[in-house]
């Protein structure tokens, strides 16, 4: 038997519409709330990520500035190094010139009594002194020439020693004949430290 129901159909339909309306409104509300919560969460995370990115970028900026400074300092140090190396080179070239200049001045002191035939620039081999201190290599001049007399040769050696430019002035040899006053000599002058 079919169930009997005397509630007017229009009323039942109205209630059904109301029930469905409430259900859908509730579903809409829940969905909206869910989406809003999700949006808010993502928005907060986006803001946090953005803030963190800015913080990281500020750190990177510092590093970039430091890198620029390093590069600048490196360029400056390279430039300074080149200057120092040039100065060292200049100092190395100045030494033989100074020695030669001293040699020439000493010769001039003897008023044409000394004639230099050959000059050779050489380096003294480094030696080890007491306490294992290594003496750096030094320049030495080896030259041969002719003096008009023994006294002139002796005076020439003395003037070399008196110049103060040489650590050692060594008369290696002096030769001549008895009938003639000229004397051939060979001298080694070691650069002063």
């Amino acid at each position, binding site marked *: *038997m079919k169930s009997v129901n*005397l509630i*007017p159909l229009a009323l039942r339909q109205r*209630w059904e519409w109301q029930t469905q309306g409430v259900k859908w409104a509730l579903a809409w509300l829940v969905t909206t709330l869910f989406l809003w919560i999700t949006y808010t969460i993502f928005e907060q995370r986006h803001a946090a990520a953005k803030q963190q990115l800015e913080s990281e970028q500020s750190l990177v900026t510092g590093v970039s500035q430091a890198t620029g400074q390093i590069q600048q300092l490196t360029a400056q140090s390279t430039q300074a190094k080149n200057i120092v190396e040039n100065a060292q080179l200049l100092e190395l070239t100045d030494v033989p010139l100074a020695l030669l200049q001293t040699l020439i001045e000493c010769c001039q002191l003897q008023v044409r009594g000394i004639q230099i035939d050959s000059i050779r620039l050489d380096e003294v081999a480094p030696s080890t002194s007491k306490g294992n201190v290594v003496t750096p290599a030094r320049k030495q001049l080896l030259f041969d020439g002719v003096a008009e007399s023994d006294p002139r040769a002796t005076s020439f050696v003395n003037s070399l020693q008196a110049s103060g430019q040489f650590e050692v002035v060594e008369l290696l040899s002096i030769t001549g004949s008895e009938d003639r006053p000229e004397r051939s000599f060979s001298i080694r002058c070691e650069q002063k430290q």
Partner: protein
Amino acid sequence: MSTLFARNAAAVRPSRAWHRPLKLGLEIGDHEARMVVCRERSAGWEVLRAGRLAYSTPFVEAPQPTTALIAQWLRREGGAKPGSLVATLPSVLFEYESVPVSSEEVTGQQTGKTAQHLMTELLGEELEQANFDYWVNQSAHGAKLHLAWSSRTVLVQVAEGLSQSGWRITAFDLPVVALARLGQFTDRPEAQLIVELNSNGANFVLSGQGEPRYLRTQISLGNRPPVEIVAARRQISAATAETALTRWGLDRSGAPALAELHEACLSDWLERLSYEIHRTLQFVQGGSPASVAPGVVLCGGAADINGLADWLAQHLTVAVAVAALPAHGNWLSAEPYRGTYALALANSQYGVAP
């Protein structure tokens, strides 16, 4: 409007382990409303709450304010989580008509058209003001189309009023159809005469497998219901008379003197009731004494009179019983089960297959 008295509803709270929607069966009588709150379980169902509300003004005289009162009562006593509600209104609000029809007229969708046609013939232009429904009885003797209708205005007023209770109103069942449903709760569901004893008289429904086969409605048993008769004869209040009838009634084993007094007070009413039941049984048996008489099931307010079923069984020589709880039901309400709640219980089983 004021309530005469209101019995408190049940005290058993539904356990939180189950969240199946509750079903409320509501019987709106002319002077009293009764409710039963049920919950379906995996095996059967259980009644969690039961209660009744009396009102001084008859329902038919003031349906709208009475409905508002009932809605308020349901909101207060029905439970925290309202579900669906099925109600019946007083029988006096309905009109019935049974029409023999051919089988072709009640086949499929043709039944609705036949019912509409018959209702138009019966009411004419007044059909616009009424709401009707129908059911069909098929038997070996042919088909019968049963029509029932009521004022649409009253139905809408009551439905809208009850919707304020918070319960979702599923249906307005007919009292006779709900009464017939009680027949399926008995041992012999194939034929039971359901007798509803209310304040206006009696309704007789022959139930076959839970379906109404034959109706006799609004049978007068006198001017006053039993409670008022006893109250007037014994000079006691209605509430005291009701308690006396419910507690001792016609049962001679407990208080014989009181039972005799009650029987003397209600003699006219009892004789009238016995006569009407006997007459109805004779009619439904078709005058054939060889056929087995259907059992009689009592329900309604007067069915609570203690010893009434035994008194009728003794005088009618048929099986008479107060509507019982079905085997698969479990009554957990603090308010004890009585025949008063049978119709409300039947309403709660609306749409449930037997």
